[in-house]
C-alpha cells in the first residue's frame, strides 16, 4: 500500500503519523500479536514480551489529558512558553505531544490529534509534529 499521505519522518524516532483524506490524524503504533501490548512510536520488537510478531496499529484518539505543563525554558528551535502534556489513548498508550492552548486543559479533558508546526529544526526549517488540542465542549446540552 502506498502511503503518500504519511507524515514526513523529520526525526527518525519522533513517531510516525498518517493523515487521511478527510484530514483525520492517526498515529502509527505497534500491536503485539503475542501479548496484546500496544505501543507508540512503532517498534519492530514488542517492548513488553520481546516478541517479533508485531503489526502496525493506527491509533486514532481522542486522548484524555493525563498531565500537562507549560514549558518556559524550551528546547532549541522552539518558542516559549509552550504547553506539552501526556494524553492517554483508548488503547492505554500515553503519548506526549505539544498542546495548542496557552493554559493546560484540566486532567481528563478529551484531546484531538492534529498536525502542526512545533518549532524549527537545526537547519531553520519548520518542524511538523503531531499535536493535541482540546475537543470543543458542546454547549446547551443538545
Amino acid at each position, binding site marked *: 500500500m502506498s502511503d503518500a499521505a504519511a507524515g514526513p519522518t523529520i526525526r527518525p524516532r519522533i513517531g510516525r503519523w498518517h493523515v487521511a483524506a478527510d484530514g483525520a490524524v492517526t498515529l502509527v503504533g505497534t500491536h503485539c500479536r503475542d501479548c496484546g501490548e500496544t505501543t507508540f512510536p512503532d517498534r519492530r520488537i514488542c517492548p513488553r514480551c520481546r516478541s517479533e510478531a508485531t503489526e502496525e496499529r493506527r491509533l486514532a484518539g481522542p486522548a484524555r489529558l493525563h498531565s500537562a505543563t507549560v514549558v518556559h525554558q524550551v528546547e532549541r528551535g522552539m518558542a516559549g512558553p509552550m504547553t506539552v502534556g501526556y494524553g492517554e489513548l483508548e488503547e492505554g498508550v*500515553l503519548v506526549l505531544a505539544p498542546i495548542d492552548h496557552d493554559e493546560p486543559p484540566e486532567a481528563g479533558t478529551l484531546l484531538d490529534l492534529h498536525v502542526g508546526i512545533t518549532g524549527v529544526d537545526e537547519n531553520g526549517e519548520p518542524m511538523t509534529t503531531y499535536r493535541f488540542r482540546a475537543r470543543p465542549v458542546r454547549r446547551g446540552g443538545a
Partner: protein
Amino acid sequence: MRDVVIVGTGTIRFGRYPDLLLEDFAADAVNEAITDAGIDPGRIGIGVFGHSQGGRVAGQRVLRELALTGMPVLNVENACAGGGTALHVGWMAVTSGLHDLALVVGMEKMARGLIPANPGEYEAFLGKTLPAKYALRARKHMDTYGLTVEQLAMVSVKNHHAGALNPLAHYQKEISLEEVLASRPVAEPLTLLQCCPTTDGAAALVLAGGQAATTAGRTPVRIAASALLSGRYRNLAKDGISSDDDIAVRVGQAAYEMAGVGPEDIDVAEVHDAFTVGEILAYENLGFCARGEGGRLVADGATGLGGRLPVNPSGGRLSLGHPLGATGVVQVVELARQLRGECGPRQVQGAKTALAHVVGGSTPGIGSGASAVHILMR
C-alpha cells in the same frame, strides 16, 4: 562477598570554575580522599570514574596529574546516576576480592543551560525538556494526591537551609518560600529555585576490603548495600506504575534487602532532588512515607535537620549543586562524614544508618536509564 568499608572521603567545594580544567579540581578531591584514608596510593588496585561530559579517558587524565598511573581505570557513564554507578563498580571490585583498595570518583565540569537531549529522546523534540519531565510528574501528583506548590517549594527552602550550613555547597544561602515561588517559571509548577543550578564538582572515596579495611586510619563506614538497576518498560494504564516510579521502588527494595534493614531504620538520607518534586517522589518510592504523603512529610518538617529523618543535609542538588557524575559520590561523602560525626552544624546526631539515592538518564519507553541506592552503616 566480603565487607567493603569507606576509609577515605574527599570533595572540593562545589561551584563554578570557568578557569579550571576538570583534571585540576578532580585531582584535588582524589588527593583529599587518599590523604584521609592514610594509605599508600600505590596500593590502590583500581580507579572508577563516573562522568558524562568529561570526554575520553578523563579518569586517566585526572590520575596523571597526581602521578598515579598504570592501574586499571574505568570511566563509567550513566547520566545523573554516573557517580552511584561508579561506586557500585568500585564496590564490586572490592567485595569480590579482586582488589583490596578501590578509588571511586564522581566528577563533572558542566556545560551551561539545559542538558541537551540524546537524538533518540523523541519526546524532547516535541518540547519535553528535563525540567518538564519532572513538572509533568509533579502535576500528576498534585491532581492525584493534592500535593501543593507550597509543599514543593518547601523542599527547596529546606535544602537551601542545610546548604547554608555546608561550606562545600555551591549556594550557601537561605531562601524563603516566597522567593522560591516568585522565581521565574521553568516548567510549571517548577520555578527556577526548584531546579538544580549548573555546578562543577568532584568527589572521591577510597573503598577497602580484607586486610586493607582493618588497617586503614579513619573510622570505617561499611557499605551495607549497593544496588544499581536500569529502567524497564512499564505501561502506566496497565501496570499501575510508571517506569520512573518502578525503578525507584525496585532499587530501594533491592538495597534494603541486601542491607537487611527497612526504611524505618534510615537515620539520614541523600536523595535525588535535581528538581523539588524528585525529592517528594523519592520519599514515597523509597518507603519513607506512604504513597501520596510526600508533600505532607516535608511540610511537617520530618525531613529537615532536626526532623525524624533528615534528607539532603548536604544541601542536596538544589543547593550543594548537581554536577551529573559527581552527585552519587558526593552524596556518599556527605553520608560517610555524617556517620563519622564530622558535619558540624548540619550534623544528624547519632546517625548510624544512611541511604543515598541517585537517578538519571530520562529515556522514553524505560523512564529513568539508571538508579543506584547505597546504604551505609557504622
